């Protein structure tokens, strides 16, 4: 050691004890209990966050690796394209110089095409009624000066139209199939449109609860006196400013929230949700009455209306992943501390963003988990958890019922 006189000071001060108040042990016990509660809550939130992240990763992997299922809107209408076996009507007229049937015959065929028992592959043996065929007879006559030796014109005409009738029938069949598939295609498009419209009209109702955490897990004690809407009782005063550390102390508990919500799907990827949220803030306040330390629980109850837009990132039969962003307005219903009513007239605004995982239990019900980050845009006059922590993380979970 350097000098004797400082040794004397060191020796005297090292053995010195202070005088503590009689209730100091009780105060320490209370502080220890609340610190343990905070530590447990922080640990629970950390574990919940890890579990959610792990579950989301596992579900995402499962979702990606699942084979695509036929959704109703992509399932083709399971109707067999009918085999159109053409039955030539009796009134069918053919012209020898043309392989295509007359237009009135085609129309007649379309109207009469059936999917009944297939017609037999009978050649067109019906003797067509023909008009006087156009032949080269005049030319032949001209050349040879004789009438060509020919069979009965009717017979001659009959032989050729028979083969033409088969090809005509085939072309009739093709055109009929084409027209019928066109009709089927129209029906398919209409059903897809109907399904899409059904999705647009989908409405979900949800019930949720939430526990909260903070971005900073450290102990928070309000250092600023006198900025609170104090009750009129003047016997509760804050300690003098001579104490640099603590005057009127606040020990904020983490808020809890419950709510109901309604969600409207605007299209397949975008939805808007709104509802009503109830949030409760509790804080232990300490003050001095007649120079004696007192404490009281401050309870503040807020009712809020959130509006949020959700972007559906991925959706399958059983799972849905989405991101959301929006705002919330909260109004104080009532607040009490020190046995008196406090007043908060200001509407509190906050911006929210969330990630959501929804698991469909049945076609009309599902459970969801939504970690949500809420950023306070204004704090109001009452000192609560919200006024100390600008950003709060809520772990919201609930049940959603789909109304179609």
């Amino acid at each position: 050691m350097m000098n004797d006189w400082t040794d004397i000071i060191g020796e005297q001060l090292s053995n010195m004890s202070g005088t503590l108040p009689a209730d100091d042990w009780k105060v320490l016990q209370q502080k220890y209990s609340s610190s343990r509660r905070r530590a447990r809550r922080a640990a629970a939130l950390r574990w919940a966050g890890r579990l959610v992240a792990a579950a989301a990763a596992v579900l995402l992997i499962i979702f990606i690796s699942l084979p695509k299922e036929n959704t109703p809107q992509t399932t083709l209408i399971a109707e067999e394209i009918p085999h159109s076996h053409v039955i030539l009507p009796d009134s069918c007229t053919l012209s020898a110089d043309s392989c295509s049937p007359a237009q009135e015959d085609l129309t007649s065929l379309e109207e009469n095409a059936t999917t009944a028992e297939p017609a037999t592959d009978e050649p067109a043996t019906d003797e067509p009624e023909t008009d006087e065929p156009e032949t080269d007879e005049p030319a032949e006559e001209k050349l040879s000066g004789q009438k060509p030796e020919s069979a009965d014109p009717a017979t001659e005409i009959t032989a050729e139209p028979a083969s033409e009738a088969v090809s005509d029938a085939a072309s009739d069949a093709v055109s009929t199939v084409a027209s019928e598939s066109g009709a089927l295609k129209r029906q398919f498009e209409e059903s897809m449109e109907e399904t899409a419209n059904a999705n647009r009209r989908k409405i979900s109702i949800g019930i949720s609860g939430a526990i909260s955490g903070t971005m900073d897990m450290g102990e928070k004690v309000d250092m600023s006196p006198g900025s609170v809407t104090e009750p009129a009782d003047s016997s509760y005063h804050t300690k003098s400013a001579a104490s640099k550390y603590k005057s009127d102390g606040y020990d904020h508990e983490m808020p809890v929230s419950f709510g109901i919500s309604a969600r409207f799907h605007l299209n397949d990827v975008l939805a808007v949700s709104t509802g009503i949220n109830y949030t409760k803030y509790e804080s232990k306040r300490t003050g001095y009455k007649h120079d004696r330390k007192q404490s009281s629980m401050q309870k503040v109850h807020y009712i809020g209306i959130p509006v949020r837009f959700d972007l559906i990132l991925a959706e399958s039969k059983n799972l849905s992943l989405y991101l959301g962003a929006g705002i919330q307005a909260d109004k104080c219903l009532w607040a009490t501390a020190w046995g008196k009513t406090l007043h908060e007239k200001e509407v509190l605004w906050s911006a929210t963003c969330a990630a959501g995982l929804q698991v469909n239990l049945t076609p009309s019900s599902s459970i969801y988990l939504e970690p949500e980050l809420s950023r306070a845009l204004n704090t109001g006059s009452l000192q609560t958890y919200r006024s100390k922590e600008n950003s709060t993380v809520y772990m919201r979970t609930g049940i959603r019922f789909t109304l179609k």
Partner: protein
Amino acid sequence: MTDVELARLCANGDESARKELYTRYAAWLYALCIRYVGDRELARDLMHDAMIKIFDCAGKYQPHGSLKSWCSRVTVNLVIDHLRKSRQMDVVPLEESVTTVPQPDTEEVEKIPKEELLRMVSQLPPTKRVVFNLYCVEGYSHKEISALLNIKEKTSSSLLFKARAQLAENIKEYIKRNGL
């Protein structure tokens, strides 16, 4: 109950063991905090924080030294962290000149009451107060102090020199005022 047994019981959550630990060391740790921070309310809060930390970390106590010195180290580290966070640990520049003051005698110092000595030490500027307490009361070396406070050894020596000079002046004034 030995120190090891007491620490083990506290680590296991034994309420009576914690009460015993509190009864043994709380008042002494409270005086330690007053020496470092000066304000009694703040010292009491820091003592509570230190006790909570001691209850949580009692399982880490090793019987190399006494339980009292282990609790003292935990408390000193916590207090220094608090002072650092509250930006009270401003280092005095080395160029500051110090007026040489005659050193008091040991007999004169022994006549001064403990509470008065405590008050004089508490009124030192924060950084000098911490270095004086660490060196003269806790028995840290300048090397250990420089590592703890993240300053140079030369800075630690300079701060101690200035703290001693200011204390010497205060002691001389007290003796002169009270006719000791």
